[in-house]
């Protein structure tokens, strides 16, 4: 433990130079604004910043991306409280009680709760990141081709199940992503697949331009297709967090932090599910259930702690398994690869200091949101009143130039366009984007692992089901799919009720 603290201290000291501090403050600010503006998401922000920082040293570039990510997830709470519009999907749960508090003239207190919850949630996630990354890294060393195959399937299935409100469509998005990842030269024979003679497609579809399209252009189209709504901002009191709110709800903070971190670790699920799950858990455990949805401090605290704790949580599988825990973490993973960092099971052997660098970056980002959370409300309100029609064309120019910047080729601009239009269409039909992103990231891992596993066993599928970790993952995948079949779900619920009833009778008898 002391070694970890020393490593963290060294990493933190490494960032204490004017350039890094300046980058962190600027990126937290940009993230905060992106998150606060409805229509601009954390994924889009991190993707655009990836293109902007392509020539910077890796440590500075990743510091900027992490600060943008943390800032954006926090920033979403501001528009949720002030406008009743979540700045990012992660802040949807904060609308319920945040805006209710604002209507009661307590917008400032609500923003203070969001600030304290977000900062404390990030810190809980950071502690988990520092402790669990080495442990999970050790576990990941036991993963072979069979386990990685199921991990990829599990990621797509669980992400499809939990994001959006229609698991079937989530899975379809995820499997489309897996297919898209296979476009271009395959790994064994360098054979061109689905390239239609287009030379640029041989290298496959780059993740960052695809994400910039799916989250940038698709957002621009979504925002601009409807006439603008009038912006009404509630008056607010002081935004300084009250210590009493933190002390009174310390159990909620810890519970939500742990739930948020845990959901972050699950591949491809992300901050919105973390916020809703933390909110639901807080409501179940609360003595003031009736206040939820009507301005509950506890509810807002739970949602904000949960979504921000998810950010460090989502980075844990990125570092240990090279599998993203959320859509913005997928961009972060791509950025790490672009900058020559190779996350995965060997990270604790090859570059243990990097894990603590990431912990330090997260800590710096949390300080950034604390600073802006306490100081920038007035400026933010002016920005929130800025018409979308003036922001969206500039965002699209950034999407185009950012896509080009990755490899200096126009083809990536066309990839961005294609994914933007397809992403918009899919969203209109209720297909979630997170599983698509995860599918694109995991497609290569899935195919390599399946082929490698089958080559090792000469076509025998047995090890995919008999090795302990593989078996557990297979059961989880099968259970997730089967539980979405109404008849199976009813039968399982009935069986569970019978088991609980029988146990209750047994205990009563004793």
């Amino acid at each position, binding site marked *: 433990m002391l070694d970890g603290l020393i490593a963290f201290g060294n990493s933190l000291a490494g960032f204490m130079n004017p350039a890094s501090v300046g980058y962190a403050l600027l990126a937290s600010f940009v993230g905060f604004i992106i998150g606060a503006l409805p229509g601009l998401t954390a994924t889009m922000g991190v993707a655009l910043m990836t*293109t*902007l*920082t*392509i*020539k910077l040293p890796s440590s500075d570039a990743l510091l900027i991306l992490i600060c943008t990510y943390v800032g954006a997830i926090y920033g979403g709470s501001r528009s949720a409280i002030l406008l009743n519009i979540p700045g990012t*999907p992660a802040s949807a749960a904060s609308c319920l009680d945040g805006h209710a508090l604002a209507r009661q003239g307590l917008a400032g207190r609500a923003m203070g709760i969001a600030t304290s919850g977000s900062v404390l949630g990030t810190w809980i996630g950071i502690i988990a990141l520092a402790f669990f990354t080495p442990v999970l890294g050790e576990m990941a060393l036991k993963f072979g081709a069979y386990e990685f195959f199921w991990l990829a399937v599990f990621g797509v299935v669980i992400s499809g199940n939990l994001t*959006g*409100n229609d698991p*079937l*469509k989530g*899975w*379809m998005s995820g*499997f*489309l992503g*897996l*297919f898209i990842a*296979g476009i271009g030269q*395959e790994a*064994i*024979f360098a*054979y061109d*697949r*689905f390239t239609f003679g287009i030379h640029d497609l041989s290298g496959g579809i780059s993740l960052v331009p695809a994400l910039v399209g799916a989250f940038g*252009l698709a957002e*621009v*189209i979504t925002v*601009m*297709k*409807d*006439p603008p709504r009038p912006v009404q901002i509630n008056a607010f009191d002081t935004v300084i967090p009250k210590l009493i709110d933190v002390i009174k709800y310390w159990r909620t903070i810890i519970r939500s932090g742990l739930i948020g971190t845990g959901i972050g670790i699950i591949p491809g699920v992300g901050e919105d599910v973390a916020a*809703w799950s933390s909110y639901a858990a807080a409501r179940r455990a609360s003595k003031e259930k009736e206040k939820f949805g009507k301005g509950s401090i506890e509810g807002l605290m739970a949602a904000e702690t949960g979504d921000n704790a998810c950010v460090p949580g989502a980075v844990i599988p990125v570092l240990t398994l090279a599998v993203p825990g959320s859509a913005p973490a997928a961009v972060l993973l791509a950025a790490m690869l672009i900058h020559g960092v190779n996350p995965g099971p060997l990270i604790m052997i090859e570059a243990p200091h990097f894990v603590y660098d990431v912990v330090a970056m997260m800590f710096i980002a949390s300080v950034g949101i604390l600073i802006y959370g306490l100081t920038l409300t007035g400026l933010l309100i002016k920005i929130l009143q800025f018409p979308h*029609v*003036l922001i*969206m*064309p*500039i965002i*699209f*120019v*950034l999407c*185009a*130039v950012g896509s*080009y*910047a990755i490899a200096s080729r*126009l083809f990536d*601009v*066309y990839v*961005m*366009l294609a994914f*933007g239009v397809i992403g918009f269409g899919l*969203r*209109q*039909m*209720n297909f*979630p984007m997170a599983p698509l992103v995860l599918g694109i990231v995991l497609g290569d891992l899935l*195919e390599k692992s*399946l*082929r490698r596993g*089958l*080559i090792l066993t000469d*076509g025998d599928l047995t090890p995919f089901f008999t090795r302990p970790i593989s078996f557990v993952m297979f059961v989880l995948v099968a259970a997730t799919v089967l539980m979405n079949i109404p008849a199976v779900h009813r039968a399982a619920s009935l069986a569970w009720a019978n088991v609980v009833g029988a146990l209750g009778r047994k205990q009563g008898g004793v």
Partner: protein
Amino acid sequence: MDENKPSPIADFVTGAVWLALAVAIIIGAWKMDRLEHLQTTIYTMPGSMAALLGGVIGLMAIILMLRSILAGALAGVLWQKPRWMDHWRLIAVLVLCLGYAIGLVGHGLPFWLGSAIFVAVFVFIFQFADRRRDGTLIRGAAFAIVLGLISSFAIHYAFQDVFLVRLP
């Protein structure tokens, strides 16, 4: 989470499109060279994974179509002629964005000029109705041009001079 649920008929049509895509993937995978001269097996053939994924996507597309039929997708369907003017904003944003990215970027026009034109036209078109109602069309055009120039120069400067990134 998105609560806007598409209609059963929309789901049916979407399912049909996905099914067509899945069939196309399977045909594409089937037609792929199997590289038998390199002693490939069923699991190392280049098209095997795509065929498997195409099959899964096709199966889910069929389930989506069946589910939409059970929800009444085919009951009393009336074809309505699309009213394009109701969607002018969507069409305009698509035309502007595609026109800029395909026509103005990387085809000889300086980046700052192409971007300034795009931003100015975008802002002017989407503010047109309000500006005309208020009688400030000329001021609106001037504002759009100034915003276009300032934003394109700022992006040019940030990418090329601060972050040393090449521009199209």
